[in-house]
């Protein structure tokens, strides 16, 4: 069925046909026709943010928590450039987004017209793909293609730059079909020979470990279910990256916790000592590998990834399997069952004994206090008091993010949204707005730092406008804590510009926005105040005043190997002067 309509109407119609319910956006001259088309219908709901970066992060939170693509609509020039940080964030973390940007009319492109910028040029490096629409005939195809490209293969953000004259032009709308790109067909089914070789390697493993990542989440809840099945069938230990938390339940005994720079002692040592590593949907990021030449020196490696460029990029693997996690896991589970395979029980038992020994170090232990709230304690209490409600948790970037990853336990995928690869301060609050829209009745918490929260604070106003009862839980340590920690490690404790000077009164600020402000600085009152926060059905800013000096451990200092981890002083075993552990070469790294 084809119908005649304007370009602006086609945009809305395509969104409807793609099943889009929410668009995050901000109007301006170059998108006015689209805003007018929005006005005439009720199927697609527009969420007015307060900054275009907020629109993109909100769409990311929406996408990550729902498994659907997020949609953004912004104007040309400043609207588009404000969206860049969000697009780069989505690119790094493989989040499917479609971002429609207005553009000056085609005949003015290249003339430095008002609010003109080369949007496709600027976004080429921070999108999976982008389009400049040059004729109305191309528009329906490009819109559908954008959704297809954003979601298929390794997901990512796609920009459609739409000149204003084309929004006004009439043309023929065409509905979406199944295969929306003429050549782009990512491999989803893994090579069976490689999968069989992987089964062989796993069945003969003595010290195996699963290392899983964001790819399992991207692949959908079915992939997480299959992962659970495979892990339980094999009896192998499992760890995950920051991006993969929730794919495997943190309450299970085979779970070792997160790995990497701030991962657990047992997870990192298991990676260091393993003889078979099964990487499913993770990309050997430098937060994981640490010093490359000392990374997991004894292992044979299997790597399942939908993107061939992730394979052998930094770490060489023995069995690459290009494909979608759910498809490959399905084959692995089936073959493992069919052959009634099993790794050597005695060896596996011995491996587990070793792991239990590492676990007994209790690397996340910290010295609690009756006077000040320890940030770790605050997260632990937040977790304990909210876990029954299966909350959706977003974060900003810094120490609080790492403590959230360490002390908050996730049982299910899509409940944890954080900026991993780009590490964008300001991500958490708008992402919470997006997650709350996708799950109106759920408890949504942004675990924040007092510095990060000020980067996208204006989105409180969005939360109020749409009655989104998000909870912003600030671990207020009056420092850019993560920066302060690195200055302690690398720069002799010279805290250059990392003190959070002139902080606002967050309680009054919450009230100024029309929300609820709660402050707590007494460990004895923490539980009651957290309960107050989750009971009130309005947006809340919780100013949790925590210890200003606490650092985030364990930590693998930059340039070090997994077995050179720093533990909390409290565990009394580092014995090293924290200011002298990183050598000159390490200092150059980030």
């Amino acid at each position, binding site marked *: 069925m084809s119908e005649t309509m304007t370009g602006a109407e086609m945009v809305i119609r395509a969104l409807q046909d793609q099943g889009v319910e929410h668009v995050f956006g901000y109007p301006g001259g170059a998108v006015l026709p689209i805003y007018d088309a929005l006005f005439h219908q009720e199927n697609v709901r527009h969420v007015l943010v307060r900054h275009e970066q907020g629109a993109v992060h909100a769409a990311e939170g929406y996408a990550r928590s729902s498994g659907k693509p997020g949609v953004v609509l912004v104007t040309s020039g400043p609207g588009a450039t404000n969206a860049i940080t969000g697009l780069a964030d989505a690119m790094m973390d493989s989040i499917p987004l479609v971002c429609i940007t207005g553009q000056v009319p085609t005949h003015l492109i290249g003339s430095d017209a008002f609010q003109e910028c080369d949007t496709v040029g600027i976004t080429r490096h921070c999108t*999976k793909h982008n389009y400049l629409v040059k004729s109305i005939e191309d528009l329906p195809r490009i819109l559908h293609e954008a959704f297809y490209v954003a979601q298929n293969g390794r997901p990512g953000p796609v920009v459609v730059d739409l000149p204003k004259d084309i929004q006004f032009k009439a043309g023929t709308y065409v509905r979406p079909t199944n295969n929306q790109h003429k050549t782009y067909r990512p491999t989803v089914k893994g090579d069976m020979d490689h999968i069989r070789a992987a089964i062989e390697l796993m069945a003969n493993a003595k010290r195996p470990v699963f290392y899983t990542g964001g790819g399992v989440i991207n692949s959908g809840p079915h992939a997480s279910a299959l992962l659970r099945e495979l892990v339980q069938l094999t009896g192998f230990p499992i760890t995950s990256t920051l991006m993969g938390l929730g794919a495997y339940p943190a309450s299970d005994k085979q779970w070792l916790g997160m790995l990497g720079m701030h991962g657990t002692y047992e997870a990192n040592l298991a990676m260091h000592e393993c003889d078979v590593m099964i990487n499913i949907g993770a990309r050997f990021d430098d937060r994981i590998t640490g010093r490359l030449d000392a990374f997991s020196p004894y292992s044979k490696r299997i790597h399942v990834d939908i993107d061939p460029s992730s394979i052998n990029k930094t770490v060489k693997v023995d069995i690459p399997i290009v494909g979608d996690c759910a498809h490959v896991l399905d084959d692995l589970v089936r073959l493992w069952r069919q052959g009634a395979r099993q790794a050597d029980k005695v060896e596996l038992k011995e491996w587990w004994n070793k792991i239990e020994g590492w676990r007994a170090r209790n690397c996340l232990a910290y010295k609690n206090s009756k006077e000040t709230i320890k940030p770790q304690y605050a997260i632990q209490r937040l977790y304990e008091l909210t876990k029954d409600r299966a909350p959706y948790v977003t974060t900003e970037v810094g120490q609080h993010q790492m403590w959230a990853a360490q002390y908050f336990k996730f049982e299910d995928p899509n409940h944890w949204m954080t900026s991993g690869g780009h590490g964008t301060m300001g991500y958490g609050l708008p992402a919470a707005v997006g997650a709350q829209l996708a799950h109106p009745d759920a408890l949504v918490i942004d675990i924040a730092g007092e510095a990060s929260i000020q980067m996208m604070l204006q989105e409180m106003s969005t939360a109020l406008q749409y009655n989104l009862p998000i909870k912003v839980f600030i671990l207020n340590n009056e420092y850019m804590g993560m920066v302060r920690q690195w200055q302690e490690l690398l720069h002799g404790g010279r805290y250059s510009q990392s003190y959070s000077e002139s902080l606002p009164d967050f309680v009054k600020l919450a009230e100024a926005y029309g929300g609820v402000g709660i402050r707590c600085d007494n460990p004895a009152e923490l539980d009651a105040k957290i309960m107050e926060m989750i009971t009130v059905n309005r947006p809340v800013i919780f100013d949790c005043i925590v210890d200003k000096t606490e650092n985030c451990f364990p930590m693998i200092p930059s340039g070090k190997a997994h077995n050179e981890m720093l533990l909390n002083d409290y565990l009394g075993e580092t014995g090293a002067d924290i200011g002298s552990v990183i050598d000159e070469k390490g200092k150059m790294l980030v």
Partner: protein
Amino acid sequence: MLQMKTHYPDAHRVEPVNRHTLAVVVDNEPGVLARIAGLFSGRGYNIESLTVTETEHEAHISRITIVTTGTDSIIQQIKSQLERLVPVHRVVDLTMTGEAVERELCLVKVVGKGDHRVEAMRLASAFGARTLDATLTSFVYELTGTTDEVERFIKLMTAVGLVEVSRTGVAAMARGAEGIL
């Protein structure tokens, strides 16, 4: 031998660097060349030569020939990164498919009188270059050959009054009956 880049400042793996010629089949859509050139600059890969023209007008398909250098793992990354681009259909490493035929064309202008002029004519005929233009004081020659031949020709011509060079970059094709596409 060049050292492999790792994110750790000490390079730990030392691998040989080789020259590879890649044939990249792409949709000839706006921005496709910028995407490919941007990928090379953004990720720090080398481009020694790059040529592009639409090869199938009906289907709007272009063939890009890229000569690049890198260790085996970097060449593999370059291929995977190229294949990841949505408008890229195929990437064929012609260096890996066996001795490919490679040619480039250059135009050379030499200006001079007397001995230099005579020597320029001798060299041109020794290389089998064609004379495209001649005046009493100048010649424009065309030479088609491998990059090495072209380099040698230009170097010799420099000694006898070369004033200008224009080169196409490499066009390449695998030997044998099999075709790409």
